[in-house]
Every structure is written in C-alpha cells, then in structure tokens.
C-alpha cells in the first residue's frame, strides 16, 4: 500500500523554525511506524534523526506524536494509524527539540532521579542472607507501576507539564508509587514529602491524557490519585 508520511523536521543548526518533510513510501499494512521511519532514513533522507533501540516496545526510546497523540513508533501498525493515506509524525511535546524526533530528556530523568527510584531498606538482611520476602498480595499492590519503561509518553501528554516544565510529571510519580507502596521499602515518607512540593503531585489536574497515552496500559491517573490519597490521609495502604 501507498503511505504519505509527513514528518515535522527541525535541525537547530540550520533551521529557524520547524518544517514538514513529506515522503511517499510503499509499505505493508502490518508494518510498524518505526519501519516506515527506517525506510525514510535508510533510503530517502539519511538526515532524519530519531531514537530507537530494542524496537519492540520495551526500551521506550521511540516515543513520538503519531497523528497527534503520544505513541511508541515500534508498537503502532501502519494499518491502525493511516488516515486518508497519510500519517503525521511529530516529536513529543514540552521538551526542547534537539533534532527532528530527538528531544532533550535530561529534565525528565532529573525528575525521575528526584524521587529516589531505588529500594531503601537499612534493616539487616534476613538470617539466611537472602532476599527480603514479600507476600503475593503485597507485590500485587504496586504491580501496575512496575511496568513503566520511562518512555515519557505520559509526561509529555500532560497539559500541566506543558504549562510548567518544572512539574515532576506523571512518569516520576508512577515511579515513586512503585516504591511508596512496596512493603519492603522504608523511605515512603521521604518520597511523599518530595511529591508534596509545589511542583509535585498536586500540579496534576486529573486530565487523564497520561492514562490514554501510556503504551504499557498503566493506570497512570489512578496511580497518581493513590499517591495524592496517601498524602491527604497519611495512610499508605
């Protein structure tokens, strides 16, 4: 089938403002958007810049706006996205564009690091020296938030984040949730304090764009709601 691919291009070294690159391709309906982008880069225009690594929806590198909403290019099939023979590709919103689809992820990862994304437990290990055990129910409590691959689809679909880049963002809150509700962790209060900051969890306005855009189907807004509830009630359950 024929595909007209419209890609927002920008190279700060020579472009004053973004422009649309238009490419006509022969593709299979079952091809992924990433395959079409590779076709452009490898056969039509080698200057196209994009991030991708695993190409199977695990590394989270190829988040971009596909037909106006955040998606992973490696998880979207052309037949599902094509409209009137065309697909429009743009970089994710709210981050500085370095080149074409590549955005500056440093502020995103700074927010991620700020919530201490690691297990904190200073008690001695069990007598057998092996891992700290946890019941299946306790593990289930934060199962959803362990699925996050830090692709930034949620954070860059959030209007509160577009309005204020200092907002910690849904992804960092999901990561905090993963440890706050982990029965083995001991730094929940510390994380909650970080999240109750002026640019913390209260900047979330429950817009639900994050839940819609998550390629891992994490219930992001619900997760944020649970963190708010823990802050409001002081109960972590």
């Amino acid at each position, binding site marked *: 089938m024929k595909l007209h691919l419209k890609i927002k291009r920008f190279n700060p070294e020579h472009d004053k403002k973004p422009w649309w690159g238009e490419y006509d391709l022969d593709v299979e309906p079952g091809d992924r958007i990433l395959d079409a982008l590779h076709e452009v880069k490898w056969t039509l225009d080698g200057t196209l810049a994009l991030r991708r690594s695993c190409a199977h929806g695990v590394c989270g590198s190829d988040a971009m*706006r596909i*037909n*106006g*909403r955040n998606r992973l290019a490696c998880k979207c099939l052309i037949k599902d996205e094509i409209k009137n023979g065309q697909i429009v590709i*743009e970089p994710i*919103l*709210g981050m500085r564009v370095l080149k074409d689809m590549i955005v500056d992820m440093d502020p995103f990862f700074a927010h991620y690091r700020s919530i201490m994304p690691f297990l904190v437990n200073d008690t001695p290990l069990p007598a057998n020296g092996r891992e700290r055990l946890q019941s299946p129910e306790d593990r289930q409590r934060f199962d959803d938030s362990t699925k996050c691959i830090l692709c930034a689809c949620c954070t860059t*679909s959030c*209007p*509160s984040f*577009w*309005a*204020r*880049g200092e907002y910690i963002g849904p992804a960092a809150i999901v990561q905090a949730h993963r440890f706050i509700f982990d029965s083995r962790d001991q730094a929940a209060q510390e994380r909650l304090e970080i999240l109750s900051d002026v640019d913390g969890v209260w900047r979330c*306005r*429950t*817009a*639900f*764009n994050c*839940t*819609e*855009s998550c390629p891992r189907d994490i*219930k992001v*807004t*619900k*997760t*944020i*709601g*649970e963190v*708010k*509830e823990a802050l409001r009630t002081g109960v972590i359950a």
Partner: protein
Amino acid sequence: MEGLMTIVKEGWRYKGSGNVMWMAHRISGLGIMFFLILHVFGMSMSFFNPALHEIMLETYKTPLFAVGELGLAACLVFHSINGTRIALLELRPEWWLQQKKATQYSLVATVVIGVPMILIMAMASINHFVK
C-alpha cells in the same frame, strides 16, 4: 511564558480527551477570576472613589457587558460542574474507569443547565435594550 507558548502553538492540537477539558477549565477559571477582580475593584471604588464607582455601574449597563455577563454565566456553569467531576475523580482514584463517561456527563450537564440559563438571561437583556 514558554509553557503558554507550547499550549497555544501545539497543546490544543494534541488529540487527547483531557487537554481540551483542561484548557476549557483554565479559560473558564480565568473568565471568573477576571469578573471577581473587576467586581472587587468596582465595589472598593464605592468607598475610595464614588465618582468612578458610578461610572463603572453605568458601564456595566452597556450591551458589551450584557454579552460579558452571558460569558460569565457559561464560565460559572462549566467550571463548577467540571470542577466537581475533577474533585470526585481525585477523591476516588478507583473510579478512573468512569472518567470518559464523567466527562460526557459534565458536558451534557453544562448544556442542560447552561443553555436555558443563558437563553433566559439573553432574552432579558434583549428586552431591556430594545425597550
């Protein structure tokens, strides 16, 4: 300012259900805030500057302000109903599955309450100015 530019240039084009409601909520909130500032300023002038207060009262009776009043009514109805939806979903995160329905209900409620209200107000204004 950068954030505002992102929203004005691109945010409105994002195809999510949330950002449109988010923007509408913000805009209606700004409308209400503008009215409140004007109202508090006008009322305070009755003490500090009665002549200016009189001028403001006369200005409020012009057709431009009659139209503004309709806008204010629309902002109030939408902002209060949508705000209730947001507050409920914040208080009960487990209701997240109902969010799309809740959005539709709040839009329907805005129309059902807002349209007759605005029509009644508009008819009263038309009668006032035509007379």
